[in-house]
Every structure is written in structure tokens, then in C-alpha cells.
């Protein structure tokens, strides 16, 4: 593929300058207030990272409050109530507002350049995710200043937390604030999966992809199966708190253990959702400083994919002490041990790379060494607590606190710090200080161990987690005091780091280009970088093109590869095939806008107003949010191009518009619906969970019977069929039949959705009475709300057809809507089988 040599127009420097100028204009951020309308991932990535770090510092201060309280016995520095809020918020913020978002932040920041792309395919979605995260985060963190923070522990176990009297508004803030943030995570997952699979540069075959992308692909896929169960759990939880539906109330047939299942189906994979992207940074840093390609590339892919799967088989190991049968514990214990295999494999690959290379010791490597040391200790205690009998001894003691901090700080925080030192020149054009970096590292490394190592012993001596204070003479005093000293030492290290990042450095010169002499594409960036991602989209022939391909940087800079210009004044990037990265489309991506910020804030309004039970305000906010999202879709997606295809350089012409499974929008819908199906499956799981624990679930002569659900399902399935036919009629050029079919479809859907609600309504099923009617109600509301969304989509297509936006040639929207309807059909059939047929069988 060496066809870069004779692209003659690029030999003219004036021509190149003009191209660069046009590119610069197209990709520029706004000035003044308009700067905040940016949707470019390079900008959003920086905001995201800084915001996540701010939340990290906030949660760190809470940690110091905890350690101050526990420094001496019988301390009354914090009241019990404040202490509960402090430790709950510490865990919550560290998990939901730092550890998860920081990986999304770093990914959208570096992935476009690492993949040689101008941008990821849905920049506005990233902006939406960011503003959601910011608003939700401020809402959750701010609660503590009003004494209204959640106080039930970061995993919010009912029945304590579903008791409105005991837990106050804090639990609602936790549920609604964080549900909103989970939406941002799923948005990031969609962006990352499609970005990695479809926006790689030509030639970057799947075997040449940077390991960071492999890890992120796995993690983004994990999010689709891990987060939705928590969202489903949140829905049940809030229905109990706001409407008194008894999902977790044993007196009316509910069960708190169901919450634990749904929480930990999310909660354990989440540990790996945090760990894998952080270790992915290590996988990028190690080869650079070992000065050689990574050893065991395929083995690391095995580790990433294997861990991604096995981590789902671990959730019950958080529930070993709940009295489940030994056989269940055995299965989960076995899976917990098995996950040590891929985890160990990747550590060995890193060590092997370091041994095989000539290592240059720099600050990022120092943090990587710290990572390996701390994480291995955390991993070993992980193997210990994976054994049920040991876990029964250590359960809910400080041993667990020590273990989880070793895993999370070793497996996530230290790699993130390594990543910050490594990627700082990439973002800001300048290096961080070596001297301050080393000082910060040693303060943090020693402080961390001094703080957390003694906790293993404090735990073994019987100190439980979450106690506000403890009496003297139990042998815990010295250990706790040492831990507190260590915590403050750690905090001083963090402060040194923060100073290094924030200190003014205007007078410092920019770093040289590719300052670490790395081999991967993100280091093509100039110092300081430009907004356009890459000057021209290169052809890649190696895992480390900067090391292996001659004149690579020069050819990219001189625009000798693809898309060196922006003739039409549009933001463009390239879409390629999944396995071999063969070019298939020149994708136009939308530019700066405030609409995503508005959509995020209005969506946030729904959650925040609901927290305070201001339902009318929530409804109004919801309607406006819907309007904003529709406007965003209408103006920014499935845009009809001014010409069918375009010369992207090097004699290659690519289409500007593709629909169906070839389009990135279709994949976005597919991926979102996988997440939606997982949430739905979790609600169905709840139904069968109750069935296993009750003899009369479903009760004899269970309402709503068969007839009404059958009629409703028939209407919805007809609507599904009509929607599929509509897509074909549109393709055949019959716009009239298309519109009529979709309007008929919308009427049928309305009937079907209403029919589903009508069943339990007319059968007198009172949800607050017991768990059976409550579960049926949740399922029918699920179908009805999806039907409502289906109607909006059908009518959106009709409007698009009338407006000339959706034609027989340009039909992305109807392809996506018909895909949605496939999932709608599955939802309908499963719900019918569960609420109407299953009671007949039992």
C-alpha cells in the first residue's frame, strides 16, 4: 500500500498551507461564551478529565475526614449521621464520579488521535454525556452541604435505604443523580465501540490495533451488560421509595436480596470496568519505555476479552454471607479464582516486555512500577476473599477495605497518574516536572502503604467497616493512627501532583514532538496540538507506525494521505471496515452546538425535580428535553449530502451517505438496544426471582389474564410488521405507502401500549399491595413506554419523508427505526409470555 510517493499537489507548500487553514477553520472551537458549545472530543475530553479529577479531590477530602474521625478511639470529630454521609459519598463519588468517568474522559480525549481519526463518530453524544455527568455530579456532591447526602453506604442496601423516614432524601439523590450519570456512561460506550470498530485508519487491521483500543472495546461492551441491571434496580428502588411499590419489602412479598443481585451484577464487572482501561494505559506506556513492541500482544487480547467475560461470573462473591446454598457459592468462588488467570497473564506480559527491552526510567514508568506492586498485593488478597470460608471471616471488616483499596488504587489510580504524566504533553504540549513527579510518587506510594497495609490487620482483629468510632483496648488504636498518618501523607503527594498540573507554565517552552519517542499514532500530534485530530488520515502498516514506517510523520504532515483538506467546509472523518479497516465511507460529523448542553440539562431536570417530588416540573422538563433531542437529531443526523460521493485523496472516492447495517447510526441503535435489552432482562429476572422464593407467585388466577395482553401484543406485532414493510416501500420509491404505513403503525402502537396498561388497570391490580401486581405493572409500563418511543420514531420518519429529509435513497432513519422495532417485538413477545402465559403454566 505504498501509494503515497507521487501525490503531486501536496508538493506545493502554499497549497498545503491553504488546506491546513481550511481544516483549522472547520475544526475551530468557538470564541468567548461559544467556546462552551464545543462538541469536539479533544475539548470535551479535557473538560471531562478535569471535572472527574475535581470530583476525585472532593472525595479525597471526604476520605481525610473519615481517617481523622478514626484516628483515635471514641472520637467525636464527626457525628454518626455526618460520618454516614461522608463515607457513603466518598465511595459513591470515587466510583461513579471519578473511576468510571475518568476512563470515558481519557478515552474520548486520546482515542481519535490514537485511531488516526479526525473525531469519533458521535461528538455531540460525548458533549451530551459530559454535561449530564457534570450536572449529575454537582447535584450528588452538593447534597452534603445541605446535610442531605445519601447515608446508606455506597451500595445502598435496602431495607434501610428504602425506608423513607430513616434515609431521608439522600437515597433519592443517590438513585436519581446516579441514574442520570449511568446514561452518560452508556452514551460513552456507544461512542467508543463504534469509534474503535469503524473509525480506524485505513490499514489498521484488527491485529494492528493499539492494545488500548482492545481494552476499551471490551470495557465499552461490558458497560452494556453491567450498567443496565443497576438502572433496572434503580427503577424498582425508586418505585418503592416514591410510590410504595414493595419490591424489597419482605412484609409484602419483596426481598432485599434482589437489590443485592442487581447491584452486584453491575458492581463486580464495574471493578473491571475501572481496572481494564487503567491497565490499558500501562499497556501503552510499557512498550514506549521498554523501547520495544509489547511481548504477547495476543495474550493481552486474551486477557482483556477473557477478563471481560469472567468478571460477570463474580457478582455473588459479594453475597457470600447472605445464606445462599453452598453450591451457588461454589460456582461463584470458582469463577472468582478463574479470573486470576487472565489478570495474571497481562501482568506477566508487561514484566516480560520490560525484561526483554532496554527500559528507560521516567516518571510514568515509576507510577507503572507502583501499579504492579500494589495491584499484585490487592490481587492476592482477592484470591483469599474469593474463597467463601475465608470471606465469612473477613466479611465487612477492614480487611475488605484494605483489599479493595489495594485493587482500586493499584489497579486504577496509579495507572491513571502514570497516564497523566505520559499524556500531559499530548494534551498541553508541555511535560510535567520530573522532580515533582518523583516526590509526589514517593509520598503517595509510601503514604498509601502506610495507610492501607495496617488495615489488613485491623480487619483481622475484628474491626468492622463503617463504624463511626471504636472503644479503647481492642488493639485497634495504633493501627488506626498509623493508617491516618499514611492517609495524610498520601494526600500531600496528591497535592504536589495537583500543584504540578496547575502551576503556571507560560514561560516554559513546548515539549519536542513525540517527547517519549513512542510508536503509536496519537504521538503524531504537534506541540501544541491542533483541533483537527490528524493533518491527514494515514495508511497504517504496523502496530507502531511511528517506529516502523519511514517518513510517516512527514507524509502525514504534508497531507499526503487521506482527507488532507476540507473543501466543502464540513467536518469529516473516515469510516472503515471492522476487520481489515478498508475505507467504506467519508463521514460528515456535526459541529459545535448548544443543543446538546440544553438536552442534557433538561434531561437532568427530569431526575432532579423527581427527587424533590416536583412531578409537574419534571414532566415539563421531560417534554422540553424530548423537544431538544428531536431538534438535535433533526439538524445533526442523517444529513443529506450535497453530492453522493467525494474524492478523499490518493485516487479514492467514497460515498458520503450510507444507511442500514453499513451506517454508524444503525450500529449506535443496535448497541443502545443491547443495553436496553439487558435492563429489560433484569426486570424479567426480578419476576423469576420472586417466583423462586414464593409458592404463590404468580398467584392462582393471576391477573391480567391472557385476552387483553394477547390483543395488545397482536397490535404491537402488527405495527412491527408494518414498520418493516414501510422501509421496503420507501426503498421502492413509494413514499405515500411509506407514510400511510407508518401512521397506521403509530395508531396500532398506541392501541397496543394502551392495551398493555388496560390489563392490570381493569383487573384491579394495586401495585402497592404486594410484589406480584407491582412486578406486572413494571413490565407493562416498560412495554408502554417503549411503545411511546416507537410512536415518536414512526412519526419522526413520516415528518422526515414530508420534509424531503428521508427519501428512498437517503433512508438512514427508517433503517434505524425498523431496527428499534425488532427489539420492540422481542420486548412484546417476552412480556406477553411472562405476564400472560407463565401463570398458566404454573
Amino acid at each position, binding site marked *: 500500500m505504498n501509494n503515497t510517493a507521487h501525490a503531486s499537489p501536496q508538493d506545493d507548500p502554499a497549497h498545503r498551507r491553504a488546506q491546513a487553514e481550511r481544516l483549522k477553520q472547520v475544526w475551530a472551537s468557538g470564541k468567548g461564551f461559544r467556546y462552551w458549545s464545543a462538541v469536539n472530543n479533544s475539548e470535551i475530553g479535557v473538560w471531562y478529565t478535569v471535572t472527574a479529577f475535581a470530583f476525585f479531590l472532593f472525595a479525597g477530602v471526604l476520605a481525610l475526614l473519615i481517617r481523622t474521625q478514626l484516628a483515635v478511639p471514641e472520637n467525636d470529630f464527626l457525628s454518626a449521621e455526618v460520618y454516614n454521609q461522608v463515607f457513603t459519598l466518598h465511595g459513591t463519588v470515587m466510583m461513579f464520579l471519578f473511576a468510571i468517568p475518568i476512563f470515558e474522559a481519557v478515552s474520548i480525549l486520546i482515542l481519535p488521535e490514537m485511531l488516526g481519526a479526525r473525531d469519533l463518530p458521535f461528538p455531540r453524544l460525548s458533549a451530551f454525556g459530559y454535561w449530564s455527568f457534570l450536572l449529575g455530579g454537582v447535584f450528588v456532591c452538593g447534597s452534603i452541604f445541605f446535610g442531605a447526602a445519601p447515608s446508606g453506604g455506597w451500595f445502598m442496601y435496602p431495607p434501610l435505604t428504602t425506608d423513607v423516614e430513616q434515609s431521608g432524601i439522600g437515597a433519592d439523590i443517590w438513585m436519581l443523580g446516579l441514574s442520570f450519570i449511568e446514561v452518560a456512561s452508556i452514551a460513552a460506550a456507544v461512542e467508543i465501540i463504534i469509534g474503535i470498530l469503524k473509525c480506524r485508519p485505513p490499514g489498521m487491521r484488527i491485529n494492528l490495533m493499539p492494545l488500548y483500543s482492545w481494552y476499551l472495546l471490551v470495557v465499552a461492551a461490558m458497560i452494556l451488560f453491567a450498567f443496565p441491571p443497576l438502572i433496572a434496580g434503580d427503577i424498582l428502588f425508586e418505585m418503592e421509595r416514591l410510590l410504595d411499590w414493595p419490591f424489597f419489602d419482605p412484609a409484602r412479598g419483596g426481598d432485599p436480596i434482589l437489590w443485592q443481585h442487581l447491584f452486584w451484577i453491575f458492581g463486580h464487572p464495574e471493578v473491571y470496568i475501572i481496572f481494564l482501561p487503567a491497565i490499558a494505559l500501562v499497556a501503552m506506556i510499557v512498550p514506549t519505555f521498554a523501547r520495544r513492541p509489547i511481548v504477547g500482544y495476543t495474550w493481552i487480547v*486474551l486477557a482483556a476479552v477473557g477478563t471481560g*467475560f469472567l468478571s460477570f*461470573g463474580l457478582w455473588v462473591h459479594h453475597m457470600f454471607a447472605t445464606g445462599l446454598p453452598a453450591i451457588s*457459592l461454589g460456582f461463584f468462588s470458582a*469463577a472468582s479464582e478463574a479470573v486470576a488467570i487472565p489478570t495474571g497473564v497481562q501482568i506477566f506480559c508487561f514484566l516480560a516486555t520490560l525484561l526483554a527491552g532496554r527500559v528507560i526510567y521516567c516518571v510514568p514508568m515509576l507510577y507503572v512500577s507502583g501499579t504492579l506492586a500494589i495491584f499484585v498485593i490487592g490481587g492476592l488478597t482477592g484470591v483469599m476473599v474469593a474463597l467463601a470460608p475465608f470471606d465469612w471471616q473477613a466479611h465487612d471488616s477492614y480487611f475488605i477495605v484494605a483489599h479493595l483499596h489495594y485493587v482500586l488504587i493499584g489497579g486504577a489510580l496509579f495507572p491513571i497518574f502514570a497516564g497523566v504524566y505520559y499524556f500531559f504533553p499530548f494534551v498541553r504540549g508541555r511535560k510535567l516536572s520530573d522532580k515533582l513527579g518523583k516526590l509526589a510518587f514517593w509520598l503517595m506510594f509510601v503514604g498509601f502503604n502506610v495507610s492501607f497495609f495496617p488495615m489488613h490487620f485491623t480487619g483481622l482483629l475484628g474491626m468492622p467497616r463503617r463504624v463511626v468510632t471504636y472503644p479503647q483496648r481492642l488493639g485497634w488504636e495504633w493501627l488506626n493512627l498509623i493508617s491516618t498518618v499514611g492517609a495524610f501523607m498520601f494526600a500531600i503527594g496528591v497535592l504536589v501532583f495537583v500543584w504540578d498540573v496547575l502551576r503556571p507554565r507560560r514561560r516554559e517552552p513546548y515539549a519536542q514532538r513525540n517527547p517519549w519517542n513512542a510508536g503509536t499514532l496519537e504521538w503524531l500530534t504537534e506541540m501544541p496540538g491542533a483541533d483537527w485530530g490528524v493533518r491527514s488520515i494515514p495508511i497504517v502498516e504496523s502496530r507502531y507506525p511511528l517506529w516502523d514506517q519511514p517518513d510517516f510523520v512527514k507524509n502525514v504532515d504534508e497531507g499526503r494521505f487521506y482527507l488532507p483538506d476540507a473543501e466543502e467546509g464540513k467536518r469529516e472523518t473516515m469510516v472503515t471496515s471492522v476487520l481489515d479497516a478498508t475505507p467504506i465511507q467519508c463521514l460528515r460529523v456535526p459541529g459545535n452546538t448548544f443543543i446538546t448542553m440544553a438536552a442534557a440539562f433538561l434531561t437532568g431536570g427530569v431526575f432532579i425535580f423527581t427527587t424533590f417530588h416536583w412531578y409537574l416540573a419534571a414532566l415539563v422538563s421531560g417534554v422540553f428535553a424530548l423537544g431538544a433531542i428531536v431538534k438535535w437529531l433533526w439538524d445533526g443526523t442523517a444529513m443529506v449530502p450535497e453530492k453522493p460521493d467525494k474524492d478523499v485523496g490518493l485516487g479514492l472516492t467514497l460515498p458520503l451517505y450510507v444507511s442500514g447495517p453499513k451506517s454508524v447510526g444503525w450500529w449506535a441503535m443496535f448497541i443502545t438496544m443491547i443495553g436496553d435489552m439487558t435492563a429489560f432482562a433484569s426486570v424479567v429476572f426480578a419476576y423469576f426471582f420472586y417466583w423462586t422464593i414464593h409458592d404463590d407467585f404468580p398467584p392462582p388466577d393471576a391477573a391480567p389474564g391472557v385476552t387483553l395482553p394477547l390483543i395488545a401484543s397482536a397490535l404491537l406485532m402488527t405495527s412491527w410488521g408494518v414498520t418493516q414493510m414501510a422501509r421496503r416501500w420507501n426503498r421502492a420509491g413509494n413514499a405515500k405507502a411509506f407514510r400511510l404505513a407508518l401512521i397506521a403503525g403509530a395508531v396500532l402502537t398506541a392501541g397496543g401500549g394502551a392495551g398493555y396498561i388496560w390489563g392490570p388497570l381493569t383487573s384491579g391490580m394495586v401495585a402497592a399491595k404486594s410484589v406480584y401486581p407491582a412486578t406486572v405493572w413494571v413490565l407493562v409500563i416498560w412495554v408502554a413506554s417503549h411503545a411511546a418511543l416507537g410512536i415518536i420514531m414512526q412519526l419522526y420518519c413520516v415528518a422526515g419523508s414530508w420534509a424531503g429529509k428521508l427519501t428512498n435513497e437517503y433512508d438512514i432513519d427508517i433503517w434505524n427505526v425498523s431496527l428499534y422495532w425488532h427489539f420492540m417485538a422481542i420486548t412484546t413477545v417476552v412480556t406477553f409470555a411472562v405476564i400472560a402465559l407463565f401463570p398458566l403454566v404454573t
Partner: protein
Amino acid sequence: MPASRDSLWFLIAGPTVWATHFLLSYVVGAVYCAKSGDIDANLGTVRLTVAIITVIALGLIVHAGLHAYRNWGFGAEDPPHDDDTRTDRRRFLGYATMLLCGLSFVATFYVALPALIITSCR
């Protein structure tokens, strides 16, 4: 035996079998113990079921592993398979799939072990 068509989906064949086997084993055990209502209920049927699905699962994993071995090219070339060719891409996918089948085999076997030892719902 010729190499078959490539797909990224095939990469996760082994772990998918593991996941299905894991879920089935857990659901069978959990439902049996919950429904029997007797803490000392004998797990005979459950253990037999787990044994049967384990044999099927291991068989499927071995099948997928052999398929991957074929795509790898019977190990004719050593990794790292980092050339810019379709052949190396296929070899990489074959090798990665085979490794994942190996991991899935061990993990599936691990999951089956408790059923070998534990005899009651207690």
C-alpha cells in the same frame, strides 16, 4: 481442512459457551434449592444436570478451539502476527480465539468442580 470465514463474533465463542454454562449451572442449582425448600435436599439431579451440560460445553469449546487452530494455520507461523496482511490478521484472530477457548475450557471446568464435591443444598 480449509480455514473458514473470519468474524469478530467467533473470537468470543469460547467465553460465550463458558457464560452460558455458568448461568445454567447457577440457575439449575439456585432454583432447585429454592424450590425444594429443604436445606438438606439431595443435589443428585442438579449434579447430573451440571455434569451433562459441562460435557456439552467442554465439547463445544474444544470444537471452537480446533476451528480456531485451523484458522491459525496449525501454528505454522509463530506470533506476533503483526504483518499488514490478511493472512496475519486471520492468524492473529485464530490464535486469539484458540487462547480464549483454552481459558474458557479451564474456567468451565472450574465452575463444574463444586458440583463434584457439594452434595446438598446446605
